[in-house]
């Protein structure tokens, strides 16, 4: 007999900042959310320091459950050599380019990004150079334990 689970996001929860492991230079970041919870992904922030190589980098944020793409946020900005930018993805936010004024880009995530445990949150960057470096990668999440009926 199969078990039924309550995946409704209600009841006791916790708020967490997840400090994602900084990848090696030239590598993408990826984090798998712990199983046993339903998550609301409030925001994702990270820095990308571009190397001296004159690539036009295009950063895409993706969320996968196994091989299934849950949602993605394509780039709206081309990051060039030597730029250091703060990327900030926010649920229900807005796409704003303040790269010149504040070295800041903000992006809109879905308004209610509920995702299950086991989901991978990762970057997928076109023309990422071997000298490029992601850092300061944080996920701000609200999470509810999955309860058996």
């Amino acid at each position, binding site marked *: 007999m199969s078990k039924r689970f309550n995946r409704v996001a*209600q*009841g*006791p*929860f*916790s*708020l967490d*900042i997840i400090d994602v492991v900084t990848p090696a230079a030239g590598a993408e970041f990826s984090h798998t959310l712990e199983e046993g919870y339903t998550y*609301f992904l*409030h*925001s994702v*922030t990270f820095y990308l320091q571009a190397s001296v190589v004159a690539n036009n980098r295009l950063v895409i944020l993706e969320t996968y459950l196994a091989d299934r793409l849950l949602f993605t946020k394509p780039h709206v900005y081309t990051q060039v050599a030597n730029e250091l930018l703060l990327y*900030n993805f*926010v*649920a*229900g*936010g*807005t796409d*704003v380019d*303040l790269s010149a*004024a*504040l070295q*800041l880009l*903000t992006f*809109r995530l879905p*308004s*209610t990004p509920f995702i299950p445990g086991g989901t991978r949150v990762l970057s997928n960057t076109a023309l990422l150079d071997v000298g490029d470096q992601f850092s300061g990668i*944080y996920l*701000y999440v*609200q999470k509810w*334990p999955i309860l058996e009926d």
Partner: protein
Amino acid sequence: MTHNNPADWALFDDVSVDITLSGAYPIRTFTPPVNRDAELVHFHCIFSPCATVADRYLLLSLNIFSTYQFIALTTVPMPATNSWRVFFAQGLEQASIGSLFYQCGPIATRLRIPPNATIFIHVLNYQVGDLVQDVAARWNLQIKTNM
């Protein structure tokens, strides 16, 4: 179960004489009005640049667990002299009406703000003499259900 109380209003004092400088940006902070979790439903202020010409932007950010999350911002520079009405709310489209000196935009949806967190008002390219006035925030207060 999580129960939401009816939205409460919390009006903040005029901060025009209370703005402080921190690094390159002047910052004013505020927190949820009582010792409970809250959602920031909407935010309003009047930003009055002084006569010095510079492209100011206004940003709200949440400082939580020693990290910053930007939750709302203006997108059109506010150059000098005229007072701008700035309004952020959940689900609102980003927009500006330059002739009326009005800007609005979305706040992060359902953003849970614990009572020990702080919201920062940043003015990018702040000039001495700029004012941030009539700051008002509307909160949806929550019964604490943290594990």
